[in-house]
């Protein structure tokens, strides 16, 4: 697994612009030739979306900017990778983009946190992760209601 390129948290951003999601990454440690390149989003389901990117020189590194159609990034957290037009290899970037249906688009720079526990379900909803527990919970709830 190649090491991920660090992203400046203070000078990078992602947001909606019209029907697109605009991603601007400041990669302080990266040396890429200014000009055209590609930025790639990939999610946990294996879906990938690539878009042309503009690469410019920035403070001690490069700035990479690309527009993605918002409809193609809907409802997921996306890993990012970049490459110059002349390069073969993708360089993974240490930042992700979250595009949720009910919240602002968010650039999430830094390493991905490890979330170990399953998302809890409200007490009045049966758990979909454990059908035996869900059945037991429904029985207990029914007895309590009697």
């Amino acid at each position, binding site marked *: 697994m190649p090491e991920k390129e660090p992203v400046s*948290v*203070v*000078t*990078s*951003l992602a*947001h*909606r*612009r019209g029907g697109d999601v605009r991603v*601007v990454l400041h990669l302080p440690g990266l040396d890429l030739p200014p000009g055209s390149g590609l930025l790639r989003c990939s999610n946990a389901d294996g879906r990938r979306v690539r878009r042309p990117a503009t690469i410019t020189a920035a403070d001690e590194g490069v700035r990479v900017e690309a527009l993605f159609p918002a409809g193609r990034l809907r409802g997921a*957290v996306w890993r990012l990778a970049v490459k110059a037009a002349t390069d073969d290899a993708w360089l993974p970037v240490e930042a992700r983009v*979250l595009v*949720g249906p*009910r*919240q*602002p*688009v*968010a650039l*999430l720079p*830094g390493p991905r*946190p*490890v*979330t*170990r*526990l399953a*998302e*809890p*379900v*409200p*007490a009045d*909803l049966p758990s979909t992760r454990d059908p035996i527990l869900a059945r037991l919970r429904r029985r207990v709830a029914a007895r309590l209601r009697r």
Partner: protein
Amino acid sequence: MSLALSRARSVGVDPFFRITREVRCDVHLVSTTSDEFFAREHPFAHFDEPVVDLAFIDGMHLSEFVLRDFINTERFCSPGSVVVFDDVLPRSVEEAGRGREGRARHGAWAGDVFKALQSVRSLRPDLVVLEVDTFPTGVAVVLAPDSGNRILERAYDELVQDYVVQDPQALPGDVMRRSRAIRGEDLLGSGIWSAIRAARGRTGETGRESIRAACARAGLTADSRAGGPHA
């Protein structure tokens, strides 16, 4: 630190949290980013009902993270919910920088959270925004939230472009002088808390209006303080 004070059912969200003090409450600590937390189907399943009474927003000391946290939190607020923003009153341009240099040179780093608070104040005059003069970098208490209001969410995509700019940040003089800030003792000793408790069970504009009226009666809001020592 703030979690150590809690005695109520609580949720803490931090991608890489560390527990350095004893905690004496029923807490769900979630190891994730706040944006991913709010993308969950039931982020507050740990509570009996998905309503936040008190939220404390740190937001990495960066305006866009803080504004997103507020937008996402407000969806789970009742009229009586209280939202606290940390680090809204930097004492110098260095402390207000988006980079962490302020901490290295001055021992405190507020970041540019003050910009998010400016947006909240200007775009949401329906909210009560109280700056509190705490050491070292101040807090803001936001009252009378409206879970159905989408003004900030719609404005976010334009605002974030103004927020993400190189240091030094343009720090307004009134923020640096803390000219709107009230003393913590005055806020805690004011008569607004019974109105806030009463509003927790209410929905809609009635509860929010009762809080705005209580703040005005207590002399905490700008209109009621015109001509006063903080005006």
